[in-house]
């Protein structure tokens, strides 16, 4: 999920900065729609909405795999947030960098790929880490469509044992553990990549 989100976010972040309207407008619509609606609604819309449309249209019922649906919705969702992070990162790079690259005969694509994006990515590692943590926590919402993620598994366990408090605490601690691991990875890569361009 973080991987697809990152790809989608980079593409639509670049798209929003494009001078061409055919690239820019779809990206703006996508980003604004996703950021302006709750993830829970997006999950329900995608999971029940699409199968509903399908059965209305064809008369057959469609069974979407909830896990697959969950991965798709969460990727699309985080992609929109990552797009804004990527866009901010690109815009924070000094204009002189693009000019220097262009003055050496690099075309815009090459300059973006070799000069601007590598610098932008170093700079956006911390907000990207926050986004991944948010994504991880938000994945608990997938319980509503029956995905057996951490929260749902806990709930099933409670329904058998009636031990609500200890199980929820355990679930919370597991989320905490995972987010701490992500923060550590982020801090580590920040240190690793930061060494070369400290100014």
């Amino acid at each position, binding site marked *: 999920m973080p991987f697809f989100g990152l790809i989608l976010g980079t593409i639509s972040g670049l798209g929003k900065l494009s001078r061409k309207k055919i690239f820019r407008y779809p990206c703006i619509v996508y980003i604004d729609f996703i950021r302006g609606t709750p993830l829970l609604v997006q999950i329900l819309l995608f999971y029940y909405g699409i199968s509903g449309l399908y059965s209305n249209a064809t008369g057959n019922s469609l069974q979407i795999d909830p896990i697959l649906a969950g991965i798709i919705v969460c990727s699309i969702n985080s992609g929109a947030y990552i797009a804004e992070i990527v866009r901010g990162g690109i815009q924070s790079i*000094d204009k*002189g*960098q693009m000019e*220097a690259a262009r003055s*050496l005969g690099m075309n815009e694509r090459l300059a973006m790929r070799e000069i601007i994006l590598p*610098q932008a990515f170093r700079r956006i590692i911390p907000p990207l880490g926050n986004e991944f943590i948010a994504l991880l926590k938000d994945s608990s919402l997938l319980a509503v469509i029956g995905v057996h993620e951490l929260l749902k598994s806990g709930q099933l366990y409670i329904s058998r044992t009636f031990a609500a408090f200890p199980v929820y605490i355990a679930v919370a601690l597991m989320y905490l553990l995972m987010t701490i691991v992500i923060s550590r990875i982020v801090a580590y890569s920040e240190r690793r990549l930061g060494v070369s*361009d400290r100014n």
Partner: protein
Amino acid sequence: MIEIRDLYKRFGELEVLKGISVDIKENEVVCVIGPSGSGKSTFLRCINLLEKPSSGEIIIDGEKITDKKININKIREEAGMVFQHFNLFPHKTTLQNVSMAPIKVRKLSKEEAEKRAHNLLTKVGLEDKANVYPSALSGGQKQRVAIARALAMHPKVMLFDEPTSALDPEMVGEVLAVMKDLAQAGMTMVVVTHEMGFAKEVGDRVLFMDDGVIVEQGTPEDIFSNARHERTKLFLSKIL
């Protein structure tokens, strides 16, 4: 070698260049002086099409670069540019800064490009800094790397936009020395600078720009000692 005819540049309502015509010969070193906002940078940036001229034509080596059909990237390969604030790539080592464009744009092999980059770094006196990142260099060293980086593309002309004005005074000399070597090796150069010493010693010609036009031009002698126009005299009295 460079012919510029009736060059105009507007930014929206603001007319920055108001009809510039000038010829620059091969091996010539032309210094451009003038007050802030007079359009010196814009003029330079038009020569390698970092700014698109509003009208007029620029011909480099018989090639009309203001033609719509021209490949802009090809032109930029021919005109090296050195910026006031260096604009080195901070995520690349000194060697990579210099060898990168030849590899990616000229499609040189990595070995060949790095060999040339080492030679250029030796030429600007920074061979021992090949593997450090720009953040570890002083301002003067950064600007020398920037010069090597531009030279690596074998440009026909080198454009300098106030290459020493962001430097501490003690570092100006080392950069000017590199530029002087370059001029003596026969490079065609257009230099926006207020270093009168450099202009006098190395410059073949000085252009004085004010308010988007070339007010006066001549040998450094002519301009610095016998300026004819009031505006030139006034400007020189302020900076000398």
